[in-house]
């Protein structure tokens, strides 16, 4: 994993711990930060992401709400209108849908409809995507719904360091941010340089692995899979570059184009159903902007256009190393 400033103090944290730490540091630094949602209080969240925050900062700063996602989102709008920086948790991706109206018609639009007079500095944390053997409604990849909605920032870390720093930046942002936390990476550990100021910000993609033959474009939970695929391909003598978007909105056109142009081939990887998705957008943009550098069509490795499957079948829905390598094989190599 690329880190920027090798001098500073690092801690090894899981993604869940890194998020917990980001919340804790934000609560400590800024008295207007509030953490709220279902079970985020004494329980510390079903993934323990908010563990200890109520104990440390009190009931007013980190608290459970009644069980109603639209209510939570709408309540947060009011808090943010009146001087607070709420960080709300939607317990699982699919349980954010009742809040959709509030997210689309208010959270995304408030700043614009009031011509900048009412800002909503709020963060919607969404434990997100699959690969954890969850029963139905516990593994949705819902980023396209948010990314398609103008007015929202949409961010998806792929490692503990980004989880920490992107969340800190999201909380500090004057605009609403949908913060997607890949569930299957909650327990993945990594180094976090807590004092270095954070490296590249929201809106910047990062090359996680250099490579010359083709570019894999991924975000969130697909980044480790892409890295594994690149590792496997390297064993077969093919050099794959891996780009981690980190932020879906804003999108790093410059970074992604430069990466694709350097290899001339691209595969986009994402867990969500492929149709009208973020992967579609990436493929369309790359196709439009890098057309003359492309030696082959942009391939997409995504979830199929089906509801997320039950645990015993989810391995087929998730982009796998095999499916990525198949797509790479398909990129019309001259030597094939």
């Amino acid at each position: 994993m690329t880190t920027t400033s090798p001098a500073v103090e690092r801690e090894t944290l899981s993604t869940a711990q890194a998020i917990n730490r980001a919340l804790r540091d934000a609560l400590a630094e800024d008295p207007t930060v509030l953490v709220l949602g279902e079970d985020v209080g004494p329980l510390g969240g079903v993934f323990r992401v908010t563990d200890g925050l109520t104990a440390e900062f009190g009931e007013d700063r980190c608290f459970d709400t009644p069980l109603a996602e639209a209510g939570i989102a709408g309540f947060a709008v009011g808090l943010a209108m009146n001087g607070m920086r709420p960080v709300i948790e939607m317990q699982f991706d699919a349980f954010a849908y009742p809040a959709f109206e509030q997210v689309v018609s208010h959270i995304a639009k408030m700043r614009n409809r009031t011509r900048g007079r009412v800002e909503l500095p709020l963060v919607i944390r969404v434990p997100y995507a699959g690969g954890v053997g969850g029963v139905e409604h516990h593994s949705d990849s819902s980023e396209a719904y948010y990314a398609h909605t103008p007015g929202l920032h949409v961010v998806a870390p792929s490692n503990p360091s980004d989880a920490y720093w992107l969340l800190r930046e999201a909380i500090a942002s004057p605009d609403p941010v949908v913060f997607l936390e890949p569930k299957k990476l909650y327990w993945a550990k990594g180094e976090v340089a807590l004092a270095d100021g954070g490296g590249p910000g929201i809106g910047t993609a990062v090359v996680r692995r250099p490579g010359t033959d083709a570019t894999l474009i991924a975000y969130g939970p697909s980044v480790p899979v892409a890295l594994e695929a690149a590792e496997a391909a390297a064993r077969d003598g093919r050099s794959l570059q891996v780009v981690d978007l980190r932020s879906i909105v804003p999108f790093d056109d410059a970074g992604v184009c430069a990466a694709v142009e350097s290899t001339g081939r691209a595969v986009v990887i994402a867990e969500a159903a492929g149709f009208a998705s973020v992967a579609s957008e990436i493929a369309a943009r790359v196709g439009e902007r890098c057309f003359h550098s492309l030696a082959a069509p942009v391939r997409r490795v995504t979830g199929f256009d089906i509801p997320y499957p039950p645990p015993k079948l989810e391995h087929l829905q998730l982009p796998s190393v095999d499916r990525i390598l198949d797509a790479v094989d398909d990129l019309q190599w001259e030597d094939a």
Partner: protein
Amino acid sequence: MESEWNFDQYIYMVINEDLMLPSREPVMLLDPDGRPTVDDTAALPAADDLLRGLAGMVTARRFNEQASVLVRQGRLAVYPSSYGQEACQVAAAQVLDDEDWLFPTYRDTAAAVTRGVDPVEVLGLLKGDWHSGYDPYERRVAPLATPLATQLPHAVGVAHAARLRGESTVVLAMCGDGATSEGDFHEALNFAAVFRVPVVFFVQNNQYAISVPLSRQTVAPSLAHKGVGYGVPGEQVDGNDLAALLHVLSAAVGRARAGEGPQLVEGRTYRMQAHTNADDATRYRGDDEVAAWAAKDPLLRLDAYLRGAGLLDDARAAAHADAAERLARHTRDGIAVDVVPDPEDLFRFVYSTPTPQLVEQLALVRDELSRDEPSREETPR
């Protein structure tokens, strides 16, 4: 056995069940002819408040009429009039202090005007210049809400933030009878109750949601009864009786300010005109019904009382009419100014810093506009 349950709120609320139940009849202090229903007129709001209220209603009525004229002249795209509901509109604004917040719907333009927002800015949305014409922080009036009931949880959040800071702000949040059917109404009342925030939910029951009558919206004894399920005291009041509205709403605001938590007030009134100018009310209701309600006009009623009590004379009434006329003229003049919205505004306010994508798109629009030739018009074809 009950004591073994040992949940504080049960013990507290069981005792208070009766307090939450609204009166069985809407509170009325002045009957439709302006006669006090109470023996002791000291039970009425102070004469000054009533006079101020009447002045507000005269202005609100004039504002409603003016806006409708502007629609007919094609200067406003649409206007959902509160004609007939002026007592509710004025009372909602009048019971609040400066530090308080008002959350209006699209129909509550007269309430926003009563609270001091510039009527020209209030009508910005309906004129089509921009989505919201005024600065919500200036008079603490939230943007006019179009998606029904969605503003109610915002009101709860605003109140909670104020309370966390120890401020004594009260929030008055308005919605219609139809909006009470939405899930957001439920969630807002429940959050308000659980967090015990100072919000007065004020439902203007004007008997219709566009064409749908109240009987298709609910079969509850009253909308005020909806408070019971949240542990929120409810009250129903004659929504065409300004005296009763001031009485009930300011008591509710006072209790909220004192830390007694949210309240629900239903004002029973009537939408005298069509839903908007685009609506045809004859399709779903008869003239008789409308005529019966015309007889309960909130302005006539208060006028009659105040004149009868010797508190209003022709001179004062003329002063009211003058003030209303001035506001109408200001509205007319302001709306007549043709604002050409800046196309760059499309991109300016979406984010605090435009994304690279928006920067590109703005450049595209700039380029398009700069090339504007007669053969390729800016209207979509």
